[in-house]
């Protein structure tokens, strides 16, 4: 008798635990896997804090389906095995139905393939730029559980190629940083420029943090290029540019947005960079972006400068809105409802407690909404990627001046044309 009772109790417990992962029990947990220590620690810590800030704002607006949201942060230490374990532990032990992260693609991808997809949990990254995600999604291997709020390289290479060809350059040398980011961007640029009628004289990869890049620069100078497309970060970028100009390279430079930095301009000297042009995936002209910036400054006493801050805020908010739109919080519902809360023909809602409260009212009325957030209006394509508006700029003396602006729609059109 007693044994039977015990069995029943265990069964009840099992059923209870089994269902608690899905039904709306308070608090609702949101998992975050970010590198708050290790080589990316400095960047990761600010991203983690901004993620928490987004959760706090959602809670101020009443949380998800009346429950407060608990933000469970796990450190990846920048290591794939640690990140994978942390994600699995969040899914299995904490019962999270959505993961935010990771930062580097080398961690996000193993998490996606070995945890998120098999467990049917949504994964939204703020920062992973690798093209492997798009490739995986196109093969159907992400099963729709993968999203990223970081605008992919796709648009950057497109606008870079357009800028090069529009400036009348015909033979372009390419020097790029040898990381997944740089390689992906440079390869796409090569395709895009061919499509637009330009040509490439050489593609030269460089490894980071070297004293000198003479060999790379000399190789890139072969074939008399009339312009240089440079994908680099400020310190190495400055070394390369100085050697390039010193060895007689043209000063017709097209640079990636990672070089839109005073450190770079000062290290080379602005007066040598008067024919430099660049682009940036940035500030959409929207009140939602300004209001995010203001709220962020009020909370942290510093402006949101730094990689991933805007995009992690949007990643968290979109996931929580999708949870709000789900009666039952499951990975599948979140996956499907992310589309519902970023629907292009939905009613626009903005970041911050008031905007979220309004979004919740609209969702409760059964309306579709369009979240316009810290990175502007998000619209995920079928691979879970987003595009961002672009601007082009140049240097005038020491001043960084804008020379053109392409809205999200124009960027999408350009990419469509290039991909056909």
């Amino acid at each position, binding site marked *: 008798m007693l044994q039977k009772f015990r069995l029943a109790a265990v069964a009840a417990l099992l059923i209870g635990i089994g269902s608690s992962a899905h039904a709306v029990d308070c608090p609702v947990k949101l998992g975050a896997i970010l590198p708050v220590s290790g080589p990316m620690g400095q960047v990761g810590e600010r991203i983690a804090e901004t993620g928490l800030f987004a959760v706090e704002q959602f809670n101020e607006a009443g949380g998800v389906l009346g429950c407060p949201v608990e933000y469970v942060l796990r450190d990846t230490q920048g290591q*794939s095995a640690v990140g994978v374990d942390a994600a699995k532990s969040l899914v299995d032990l904490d019962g999270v139905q959505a993961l935010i992260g990771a930062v580097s693609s080398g961690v996000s991808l193993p998490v996606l393939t070995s945890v998120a997809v*098999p467990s049917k949990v949504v994964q939204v990254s703020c920062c992973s730029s690798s093209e492997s995600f798009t490739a995986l999604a196109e093969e159907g291997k992400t099963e729709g559980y993968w999203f990223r709020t970081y605008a992919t390289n796709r648009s950057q290479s497109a606008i870079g190629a357009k800028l090069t060809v529009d400036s009348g350059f015909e033979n372009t040398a390419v020097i790029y940083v040898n990381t997944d980011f740089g390689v992906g961007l440079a390869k796409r640029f090569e395709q895009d420029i061919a499509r637009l009628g330009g040509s490439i004289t050489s593609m030269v990869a460089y490894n980071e943090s070297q004293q000198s890049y003479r060999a790379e620069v000399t190789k890139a100078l072969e074939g008399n290029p009339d312009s240089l497309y440079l994908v680099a970060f400020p310190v190495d970028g400055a070394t390369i540019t100085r050697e390039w100009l010193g060895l007689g390279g043209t000063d017709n430079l097209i640079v990636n947005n990672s070089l839109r930095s005073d450190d770079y301009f000062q290290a080379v000297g602005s007066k040598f960079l008067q024919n430099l042009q660049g682009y940036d995936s940035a500030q959409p002209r929207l009140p939602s972006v300004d209001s995010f910036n203001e709220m962020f400054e009020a909370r942290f006493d510093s402006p949101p400068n730094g990689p991933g801050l805007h995009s992690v805020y949007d990643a968290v908010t979109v996931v929580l809105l999708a949870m709000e739109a789900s009666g039952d919080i499951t990975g599948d519902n979140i996956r499907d409802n992310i589309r519902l809360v970023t629907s292009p023909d939905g009613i626009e809602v903005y970041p911050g407690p008031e905007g979220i409260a309004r979004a919740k009212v609209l969702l409760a009325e059964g309306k579709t909404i369009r979240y316009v957030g810290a990175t502007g209006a998000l619209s995920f394509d079928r691979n879970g990627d987003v595009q961002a508006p672009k601007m082009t700029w140049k240097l005038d003396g020491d001043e960084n001046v804008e020379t053109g602006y392409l809205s999200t729609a124009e960027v999408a059109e350009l990419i469509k044309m290039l991909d056909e």
Partner: protein
Amino acid sequence: MIGLVSYIVFFLILSLIFGVAVLGLNLQWGFTGLFNAGVAGFTAIGAYTMAILTGPARDAVFGGFELPFVVGLIGAMVASGTGAVVVGLATLKLRHEYLAVATFGIAVTIQLVCLNWEYLTGGTLGLIGIPNPSKAWADGPLAQNAFYLGVVLVVVGLTFVALERIVKSPWGRMLKAIREDDVAAASLGKSPERVRLEAFVLGCMIMGLSGALYVAFIGYVSPWDFLPIVTFQIWTMLIVGGSANNRGAILGALIVWGVWTMSGFVISRVVPSEIQAQGGAMQAVLIGLILVVTLLIRPRGLIGEELHVSRHARS
């Protein structure tokens, strides 16, 4: 409850895969006294070989032979063994710290080759879509992981039994003789250089096996999986578990990986969310503290070397 079981299965898979590499290192350091600081490099060779042999075909990247899993495992061992012969011939004349520096440099070199030789390794993008054999045999994540755990257990078991037999054989006693005093061993007509090379190659093959098991489980390989920290983790596992004891090697893998992951879990539960972003530093401190305390209490590791006398010798 199901979640807990599922997590434990997952945890065991990862820690036992580490355990395989620790067994390889144990043969080199524990029994032969070879200071190999390039563990990550040899696991990388095995990992990429697995990915190339069993992965799907890709544009502009070598490989994609879609061969069976077992062929991948054997190929991984052959490739890391071949790498070890080359490395061993070049470096094994070096002793102790010199060997450590040389092998460390080689591991970094291997990682950089993985990063740059796009045609072979996919470069920074890595190789995706490596098949996990359990997908063909089981349905649902828990069943698949349980199946894979079975595969890992078989590999660990076979490796363990083989190593136990090897170290108890005359050849195994020779390893220890060379570790303790190679001049004495040479004076008895043994060839320390040759035996060192044999032990080094065999150990590296086992490390390659570990790398292969890892990528087939994760389904993806990239150069970022083989940073020097991996070498450090595997060394810690061996030292904490107890070097020159194969049981200790596996126990060390379970304990150290357990500390590594549980510390993160505990911090996410205990530390209030406002300061969790600083929790990473606390986790590192916690890991270090537990390891130091373990070694203070058990300086020879949790299970140290067992004293052996040949069963043929008379007492």
